């Protein structure tokens, strides 16, 4: 099993609940897609080519300040439960973890994890530079990703062409290679049934949305990922600016919706949220979807000041730790049956919430 204590912050500093609007916007991520000049792109590259790409990055690491003290995890050498753990921590994509149905994990698939940034190696593109921040912080995340990009690009030659910009495996990323996304919690808009209008509006603004785990994932627990859809023809700053304006607007709409809910259905909402908290505190079995929905309720209660604990940080941690591989790890096993997982999950949640009550008096 991976010892996450060896990784900087266990790779989850972005959960700490700091930053702007942390009860609504959980985290902000910026990733830059880059390929190394002279090699076929990952899916067409031979094993040896992918290993050389990894070799180039390894050689560059000591010279790149943002990667100093970073660790290289050979994803291709990890067992499935460990790869699942990394995916559940949002550190690697399903594709890199080899969890994508028919695609096995590729030789040379790796994750470089440093303090502020990480790099997925041999994902769809050779290098996916990533920066994650707690709360709403697109500029902070972009600054960190760009610093890494500037330095790394001086030691590793990127595939680049003047007109099209950075060349990526999929033309949907060509140009800036930038995908900025925020993980946002919108229970108010879901409960007031305003959400479909808001989501439809996103598409007109050149943005798109996905579920908790990115591409192809379902919306669960009222969590959405909003990100830019286009990458070419606008500068990075323009793309971030567009995303920021829209996200701020969505946050405002969410706050209005919460206000309306409290005004028009105060006691119903209050009862629903306390029940969610009560269930999480005392249930003996919780499925993943149940846990996500109740956690969504508790997060809403917290931001409405109906509850004073748990902390946002505890809720964020539970979001990660309620997933299958984390629950199994907590139970000391590689995998669990659904029934056993529900029991272990409920125990983990009870313990975490009890500890939080303890620490908050």
């Amino acid at each position, binding site marked *: 099993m991976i010892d996450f204590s060896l990784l900087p912050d266990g790779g989850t500093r972005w959960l700490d609940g700091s930053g702007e609007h942390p009860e609504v916007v959980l985290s902000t991520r910026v990733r830059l897609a880059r*390929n190394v*000049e002279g*090699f*076929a*792109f990952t*899916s*067409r590259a031979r094993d040896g080519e992918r290993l*050389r790409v990894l*070799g*180039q990055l390894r*050689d*560059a690491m000591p010279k790149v300040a943002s990667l100093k003290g970073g660790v290289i995890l050979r994803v291709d050498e990890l067992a499935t439960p460990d790869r699942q753990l990394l995916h559940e921590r949002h550190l690697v994509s399903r594709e890199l973890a080899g969890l994508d149905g028919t695609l096995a994990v590729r030789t040379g698939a790796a994750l470089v994890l440093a303090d502020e940034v990480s790099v997925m190696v041999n994902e*769809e593109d050779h290098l996916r530079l990533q920066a994650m921040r707690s709360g709403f912080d697109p500029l902070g995340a972009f600054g960190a990703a*760009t610093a890494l*990009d500037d330095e790394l*690009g*001086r*030691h*590793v*030659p*990127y*595939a*680049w*062409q*003047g*007109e*099209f*910009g*950075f*060349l990526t*495996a*999929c*033309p*949907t990323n*060509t*140009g*800036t290679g*930038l995908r900025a996304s925020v993980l946002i919690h919108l229970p108010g808009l879901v409960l007031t049934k305003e959400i479909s209008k808001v989501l439809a509006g996103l598409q007109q603004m050149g943005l798109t949305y996905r579920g908790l785990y990115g591409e192809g994932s379902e919306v669960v627990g009222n969590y959405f990922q909003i990100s830019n859809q*286009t*990458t*070419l*023809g*606008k*500068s*990075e700053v323009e793309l971030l600016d567009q995303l920021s304006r829209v996200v701020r607007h969505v946050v405002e709409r969410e706050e209005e919706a919460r206000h309306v809910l409290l005004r028009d259905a105060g006691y119903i909402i209050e009862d629903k949220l306390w029940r969610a908290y009560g269930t999480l505190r005392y249930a003996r079995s919780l499925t993943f979807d149940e846990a996500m929905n109740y956690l969504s309720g508790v997060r809403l209660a917290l931001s409405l000041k109906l509850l004073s604990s748990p902390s946002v940080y505890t809720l964020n941690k539970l979001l990660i730790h309620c997933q299958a591989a984390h629950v199994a790890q907590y139970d000391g096993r590689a995998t669990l049956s659904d029934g056993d997982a529900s029991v272990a999950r409920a125990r983990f949640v009870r313990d975490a919430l009890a500890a939080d009550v303890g620490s908050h008096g």
Partner: protein
Amino acid sequence: MVCDSCRERDAVVHLTQVVDGTVTQVHLCEKCAADKGVETTVAAPKTPLTSLLQTVQQQLAVGSSDQARCTFCQATYKDFRASGRLGCARCYSAFEPQLRDLLQRVHGSTRHTGRQYAPPAPDELQRASTVLELREQLRRAIELEHFEQAARLRDQLKEVAE
């Protein structure tokens, strides 16, 4: 065969379209073809190209260029259409006309206006690739238990790295 457009006159112009691998044929009379801007002679078109002709030409281009092959990674445009992924950076030149059209449709633009990039200086790269090669040789020497050679390679590596 009657014209697909006016359904009156005889069709004399036969256009073959290839859309997503499906071949469809359009049959037009001389007048309708001319109205739509399809020229039946080799002379330069007198009327502006209509969207029909553009579509046909485009699709024909896509159809025939399915076989186009990137000389670097050997991927064909058909491979790209099947997987949605390009094989390498050179594919952008190999399939430029189709990609330009695709980028325009996806992004509303084909011109990168973001951060600019200057590749690293050649001597830096040269050094990096020497390091890679030496490291590879070193690994092989150790595997084959040629320890004297390995020691020499290790010293060389140290020199290059400094």
